């Protein structure tokens, strides 16, 4: 039973699909919104209704508060789920929903504003008795002041966008001579990603752990935490693999971080689902980083170990229901790992690789869940985040979860673009990861030791390519064996001709 009959999903990709699935299970009708680039996207196909909201660039569609509210009114949707990214942490959007009498499935707009500005979040955390990463509690603009603060904290330091997140507008600075250019880069990235160029400065720890606590709070003063997620496998300060429980977290640290999270949740009167991110140093001291006032990409990891459907609970909490459990009812059961599959080339520094997906095979079998937004024939738009799918493995312990994930990553195929799947394959066989002995420096260290494909597999790949070319035309015709414009081809022809002379 639920108070809502219809929910609009103000997002796209796998997370829109995830929310639509929750709506369907709850017996609630769903409304998708889509840009001109997304008419054929999976979330549009899966929803009960769909409304176009403008051209492909997100600021003309998925970031247009007016058009999304028009779509909600036009379809008589009573609530809006924002997913993550886009308008999920936009206080003006939450306020516009409140003003329009449409339920925003998330915290109150003033909470989003308070926690969305990272320096005000740091100030309120200090007031709640939660330790924060050393650094400024206000944004800094003046280069002299930044030099003074950096000297006071000691290098390396981190420059961070005051609003936003997801690794954008963030720069690690290791020496004073880099401060000015890094500041310019961070400000310009923050400006283009979030429309706000303000940055602040934090001490950067060497090889810290990035560990977060999931929280849920209802409108009646009840709040719980759903334990931790270990998020230390990162590239460009963005997570690629998460797991729960964290192999680094002791029962004492888990209980301390849970208490800190609850202190901040109570201090700000938090409602709905949220996540507190912490840096944890080598001595297991947690420092509050920021709070994400929304559902996280990696929420399935928590769902698998707690058995709780976070999205359905978000909806029920927004409808005014009470949390159906208390802290003591909650347990971590077994172990879960998530691998994010991005359209990025891990062999070329994780450069984005847009293109058309010609075929997809989704992994299955025991303990495997795949949250995906792609299908065969899907053209990856260049306008949005290149996340294609998430594979989540659950097992009775870390060993069995890893074994399932290794199997699933080999089964999963996305044909047509480079993806991070080969990276996951390597990671899942990496000694440090297998031992559970890793921190945020892991991906960088892996880049220093690139994998080589072994000779027999290389021969097999070459044989497969040659047979495919042979079958296409039976002879090394340029049309089949590569374009005649290919520099390799031309070089070969030139050499062959020279050899004849």
């Amino acid at each position, binding site marked *: 039973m639920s108070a809502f009959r219809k929910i609009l999903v103000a997002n796209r990709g796998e997370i829109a699909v995830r929310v639509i699935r929750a709506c369907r299970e709850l017996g609630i009708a769903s409304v998708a919104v889509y840009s001109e680039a997304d008419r054929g996207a999976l979330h549009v196909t899966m929803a009960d209704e769909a409304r176009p909201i403008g051209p492909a660039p997100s600021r003309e569609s998925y970031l247009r508060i007016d058009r999304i509210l028009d779509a909600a009114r036009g379809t008589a949707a009573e609530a809006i789920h924002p997913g993550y990214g886009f308008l999920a942490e936009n206080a003006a959007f939450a306020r516009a929903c409140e003003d329009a009498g449409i339920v925003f499935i998330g915290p109150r707009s003033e909470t989003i504003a308070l926690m969305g500005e990272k320096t005000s979040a740091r100030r309120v955390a200090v007031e709640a008795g939660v330790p924060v990463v050393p650094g400024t509690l206000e944004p800094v603009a003046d280069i002299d002041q930044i030099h003074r603060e950096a000297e006071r904290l000691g290098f390396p330091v981190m420059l961070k966008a005051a609003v936003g997140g997801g690794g*954008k507008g963030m720069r690690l600075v290791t020496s004073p001579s880099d401060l000015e250019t890094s500041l310019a880069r961070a400000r310009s990235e923050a400006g283009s990603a979030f429309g706000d160029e303000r940055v602040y400065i934090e001490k950067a720890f060497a090889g810290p752990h990035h560990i977060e606590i999931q929280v849920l709070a209802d409108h009646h003063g009840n709040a719980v935490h759903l334990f931790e997620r270990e998020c230390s496998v990162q590239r460009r300060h963005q997570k690629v693999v998460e797991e729960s429980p964290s192999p680094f977290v002791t029962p004492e640290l888990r209980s301390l971080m849970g208490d800190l999270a609850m202190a901040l949740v109570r201090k700000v009167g938090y409602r709905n689902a949220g996540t507190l991110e912490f840096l944890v140093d080598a001595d297991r001291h947690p420092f509050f980083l920021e709070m994400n006032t929304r559902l996280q990409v990696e929420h399935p990891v928590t769902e698998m170990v707690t058995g709780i459907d976070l999205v359905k609970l978000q909806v029920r909490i927004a409808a005014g229901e009470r949390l159906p459990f208390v802290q003591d009812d909650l347990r971590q059961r077994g172990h879960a790992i998530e691998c994010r599959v991005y359209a990025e080339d891990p062999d070329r520094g994780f450069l984005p690789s847009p293109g058309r997906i010609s075929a997809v095979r989704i992994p299955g079998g025991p303990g495997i869940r795949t949250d995906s937004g792609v299908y065969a024939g899907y053209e990856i738009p260049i306008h949005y985040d290149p996340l294609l799918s998430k594979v989540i493995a659950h097992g009775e312990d870390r060993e069995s979860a890893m074994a399932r994930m290794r199997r699933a990553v080999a089964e999963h195929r996305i044909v*047509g673009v480079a993806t991070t799947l080969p990276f996951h*394959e390597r990671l899942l066989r990496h000694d440090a990861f297998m031992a559970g002995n890793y921190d945020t420096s892991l991906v960088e260290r892996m880049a220093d030791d690139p994998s080589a494909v072994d000779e027999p597999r290389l021969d097999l790949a070459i044989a497969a390519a040659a047979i495919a070319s042979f079958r296409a035309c039976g002879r090394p015709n340029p049309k089949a064996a590569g374009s005649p414009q290919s520099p390799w081809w031309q070089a070969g022809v030139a050499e062959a001709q020279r050899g004849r002379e």
Partner: protein
Amino acid sequence: MIVEARVGDRVSRVEVRAVGDRYLVSVDDRTLDVDFIDCGDGFLSLMVDGESHDVTVERRSGGFALTLRGSRVIVDLGPSLPAGVAPRHGSGSAARLVAPMPGKIVRILVPAGGSVEAAQGVVVMEAMKMENELRAPRTGTVREVHVQEGQTVETGALLVVVE
């Protein structure tokens, strides 16, 4: 059919012969007896000495990209060279930096005439909401810069020539 296959720096001479419903493929000195089935949509099933290999294939400019249990291998195919002619390697001459994806040029870090180390950042490009630093393909001098800051480029657009 005889072709040259290139994977990274490795160049192999490859001969393919159809024998009944199988293929005999010589890759340099090694011969593989391959039972090959096209399952459609780029999925292939290869059996070699009773071992089953689950391979996906996609055609790309110059050859194919193949995925075998988590590894993605780019195989470029070209015409075979007469015996005794060494295949040409791409060193010693100018190296071109091309756009790996469509996007916007945010900054040019090294102007024409500037010297660069291999893998040093040369151009910052914004694509898929991220700023990506594109690195010099080799050590040398930036001879030509073909783009301006703020310009939008397509995949494969020539950005910079390093000599």
